[in-house]
Structures are given as C-alpha cells and as structure tokens.
C-alpha cells in the first residue's frame, strides 16, 4: 500500500493554511537542501534556501521574512547555533527548527539555548513536516 502523498494530506481542510507559508531551508549539503525544498514545495510552501548560516542571516538583512526556518547545525562559515543566536538578536520571530544528523545532549542544549523552537533528526519525514506546518499555520 502506497503512503498518501504529502500534498493530499495537506490539502485537507484540517490544515487550513490561511496564507501561503514561507520557509527557509538552511543546510550546506545540496542533496539535503534539494530534498527538503521539494518536500516543502510539495505541500505548497514557498521556499528559499541558504547554504550556511551567513547566507541565512543575509536573507533577513535583505528584508525577507519567513514563517519557518529549517536550520542545520553543522555548517561552514557560520553554523546553525551562531546563525540562530544572531537571528534572535535581530528580532526574528519565525519558528526555527534545528535539524541535525547527530548531536550529543550538550550540543542539543546549546542549540536550544541559542533560540530554536524545536529539534528534529535528519531526514525529516512527511508526517513530521505536516506537524510542524500545522503548528505554524495555526499560530
């Protein structure tokens, strides 16, 4: 039996996205970025991408806004923890979800203290994404 497509689940009235959501995917790995961007576009979320924390901060300095940021932890130039701290200091209120392939408890704590709202392990699955977007859509 095939799993339901993400867009079929998201198009139901239970989700009720009032406006089109905007997401920013921040990851230095191009395969992961492509996968997450496709996952988000599949459920009709407008998506931008950034290859590291510095590029993510630049998006905001250019005046862009997002409802949700999927932030990788380990990146060159500026990692996810540094980028999250800077974004919160800039007053960014978007939901920031830390995403990582592996982390010690100490690293998770550091990421949470930097200002992320949630924490997920890669790869993100369709059900996890739906839950995240439901929370954002109803806020």
């Amino acid at each position, binding site marked *: 039996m095939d799993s339901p497509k993400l867009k079929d689940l998201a198009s139901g009235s239970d989700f009720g996205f009032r406006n089109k959501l905007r997401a920013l995917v921040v990851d230095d*790995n*191009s*395969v992961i970025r492509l*996968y997450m961007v*496709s996952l988000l576009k599949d459920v009709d979320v407008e998506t931008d991408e950034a290859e590291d924390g510095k590029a993510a901060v630049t998006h905001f300095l250019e005046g862009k806004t997002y409802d949700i940021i999927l932030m990788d932890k*380990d990146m060159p130039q500026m990692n996810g923890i540094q980028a999250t701290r800077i974004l919160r200091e800039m007053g960014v209120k978007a939901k920031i979800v830390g995403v990582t392939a592996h982390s010690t408890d100490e690293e998770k704590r550091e990421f949470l203290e930097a200002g992320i709202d949630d924490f997920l392990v*890669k*790869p993100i*699955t369709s059900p996890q994404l739906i839950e995240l977007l439901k929370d954002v859509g109803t806020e």
Partner: protein
Amino acid sequence: MLGLGAARLEADMNRLMALLFHQFIWKEKMEKLAHPSTRWLMWDSAQGVLDEQFMQLQQLQDESSPNFVSEVISIYFRESEKLLKNVRSLLSALHLIRTFVANWRVMFLSHRADRECTDYRKIGIHLNQLMGSSSSVGAKRVRTVCLAFRAASEHRSWSGCLRSLEVLEHEYCYLKTKLHELFQMEQQRVMAAGARHHPLLS
C-alpha cells in the same frame, strides 16, 4: 550419511545446486516484474541497501518534476565522490605524516599532533556530510559504514580508518551499480508502457 555412495551424494548435491540456482533466477525475475515500490521493499528486506526514505523520494516525483529522483541521485553521486576523494587524500596525508615523523620524531611531534587532529576532524566533517546525504536518499548501508568510519576517526585509528574507507568505497560502488540498474529497468518499463499505448499498436 553412513553407507551412502559417492555417486548418490554427488547427485543430491547437483539437485540442491539446481534448486538454489532456480530460486536465485526466480528471485531476480520477481524483482524485475514486481511493482516498483514492492520491488524496493523486497530488495531492501533481502539486501538492506536502501530503506523507506528512498520511497519518500519516489513519492515526491510527479508530473511537475518527472525526473526528481534521478536528479537527486545524480547530485548525491557527484557530491559523494568528491567527499570520498577528499577522505582518501586526508588518509594518505596522515600516512605520510606518520612515516615522515617516525624519522624525525622529537622535532616534529607537536606539529604532528596538531596536524593529525585537524586531519581527523576534517575526515569527521566529510563523513557527517556523507551520512546526511546518504540518509536523505535512503542509502542505509552506506550510512551505517559511515558511522563506523566516524568512530575510527574519533579514535584516531589510521588502520581502522583505512579499513573503513575500503568498506565504504565498496558499499558506495555497489549502491551506484544497483541504482543504475534500477533506473535502466524503470526506463525500459516506461518505454514498454508507452509502446503498448501507442495509437498504432492499440
């Protein structure tokens, strides 16, 4: 077994070999004929090369992005090969340092320690990248080998890293071969479906 003649034993062996060969061929045929998603489940349970994350990729492929899976896999191959090449270079460099410093022990010990630390850390970073992308495409066995490799690099075991790299390269090549076969089969299936629905043939 006692008292059975050699000829009878040989005959039994030949029958067993024929049965195993038949089962192997049947399995190969079933894998080719089964529905794609079923085929992958069968393959996964038999060989564990891919996991259900690959099916997630397949579900993202539709009319608006008909080549999504092959695009993702192409990028995965390209990036993985760069990472493997970098890891191999770092291990070669570590081997040179060990050989060189063995001859100039006292003078370069501290330099060696710093350099080794940096190189093992870089290996760890490359492996994290490969693990992340392998997880995203469902390359379960490659990811598992990366985990063991990372443990060897954290322990700064050069011989452990070298062994892990050999296993990793073997698993990666195997995965690449199997995925190429899959894409070729899918292409043939699509072409055959197109031919069946050709107006001249219907």
